[in-house]
């Protein structure tokens, strides 16, 4: 698992681009803070996605030009954003009614660990001195129709993020549908992780070596 060969997987931008291809036109999408936000840059031609930010905006647009932001028009990551034509503002209870009520088509989130049964851990290391902070992550995974995870395949120290069972505190149980890592696209199936697509130049064995649970090959 700690093989030191340098593998050149997808860049973050390529991961975002690959993921964006799987989002149907007209989808209502919530992009988590951080890497998932990159997805908005790669909307395939001819499609429109409507972005929801849980702090109260549907129809979120790109960041404004430097210095032109409104401190009261921000996203869940507290960054300045804009509102597209057709946008709507609403309060938090209404915003999370959208989430919990299953009205959003897709949530894209980062991850610390994902288990082979789709458990997700992405909010806390569980260390005794950590300040616990959960935000809307538990609501998103409990409510949104599909949950995609976008993540480096391994941690910075080389540990696998895809595991048999999460050791970090869970965000949700059995909630992840699909993982887009730098090495592969992997579905969470009733039989466990299944590799749907490999990054060009990366082979199955390499991905398996960096994964803490058995991988199934793509359906033939």
């Amino acid at each position: 698992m700690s093989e030191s060969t340098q593998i050149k997987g997808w860049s973050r931008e390529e991961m975002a681009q690959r993921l964006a291809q799987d989002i149907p036109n007209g989808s209502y999408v919530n992009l988590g803070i951080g890497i998932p936000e990159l997805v908005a840059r790669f909307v395939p031609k001819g499609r429109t996605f409507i972005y929801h930010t849980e702090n109260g905006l549907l129809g979120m647009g790109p960041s404004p030009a430097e210095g032109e932001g409104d401190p009261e028009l921000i996203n869940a990551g507290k960054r300045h954003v804009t509102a597209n034509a057709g946008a709507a503002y609403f309060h938090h209870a209404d915003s999370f009614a959208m989430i919990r009520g299953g009205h959003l088509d897709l949530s894209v989130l980062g991850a610390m660990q994902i288990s082979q049964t789709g458990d997700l851990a992405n909010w806390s290391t569980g260390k005794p001195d950590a300040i616990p902070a959960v935000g809307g992550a538990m609501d998103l995974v409990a409510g949104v129709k599909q949950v995609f995870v976008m993540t480096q395949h391994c941690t910075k120290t080389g540990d696998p993020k895809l595991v048999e069972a999460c050791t970090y505190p869970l965000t949700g149980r059995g909630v992840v549908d699909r993982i887009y890592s730098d090495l592969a696209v992997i579905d969470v199936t009733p039989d466990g992780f299944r590799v749907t697509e490999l990054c060009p130049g990366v082979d199955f064995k390499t991905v398996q070596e960096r994964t803490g649970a058995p991988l199934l090959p793509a359906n033939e």
Partner: protein
Amino acid sequence: MIDKRLPSAAEAVADIADGSSIMIGGFGEAGSPIELIHALIDQGASDLTVISNNTGSGQVGLAALLKERRVTKVICSFPKTLNSTVFPELYREGFTELELVPQGTLAERIRAGGAGVPAFYTPTAVGTPLAEGKEPREFNGREYLLEYGLTADYALIKGTVADAHGNVLYNKTARNFAPVMATAAEITIVQAARVIEPGDIDPETIVTPGIFVDRVVQIAEPVHESELIAEGVSYP
């Protein structure tokens, strides 16, 4: 491009199948989506469950749908109308079943259904016949009843202005049940007097965000129940 517009009420309701559950907006005639209801009458679906505050007036709109013997159950708070005998007759005959729900509980059950809340507790109806069969529970020394979220296959609602993304504005007290029904139905169908482009409604003023709306039909000059009744109309 996202465009939820359809050219006619007939097309908007075309796929409603026999046995569907349908939330219908309106309190009395305010907010009643008459043109959508009439399209549903023309369409022919039967054995429907209708969730609506009332059961209609005269022999138009919701009352006409009932009169055509297309509704086998209503979930409703006030199924009595001065000028309509349609529901009382179907109810006494045993053709249409009634689930009577206090008005606020009805609204809250619909909101809960749309908000992913399967059940909640309410003080309403404690100690009354409508508490029968409901699970009681005490919180802070007061008794409450467990009520369940309510969802439906379709919602038919009426706005004044809508855009192609499905954002909706309403007229005065015609707003009533529409915003919560829009959230609780699998398919929400809106008729609006004006249908405009996204961006033409101030995002601060939108009452129903487009995420809750699936189909939008322009009915430029919607009729009012009371006008039809005054003219003696009986639909179809």
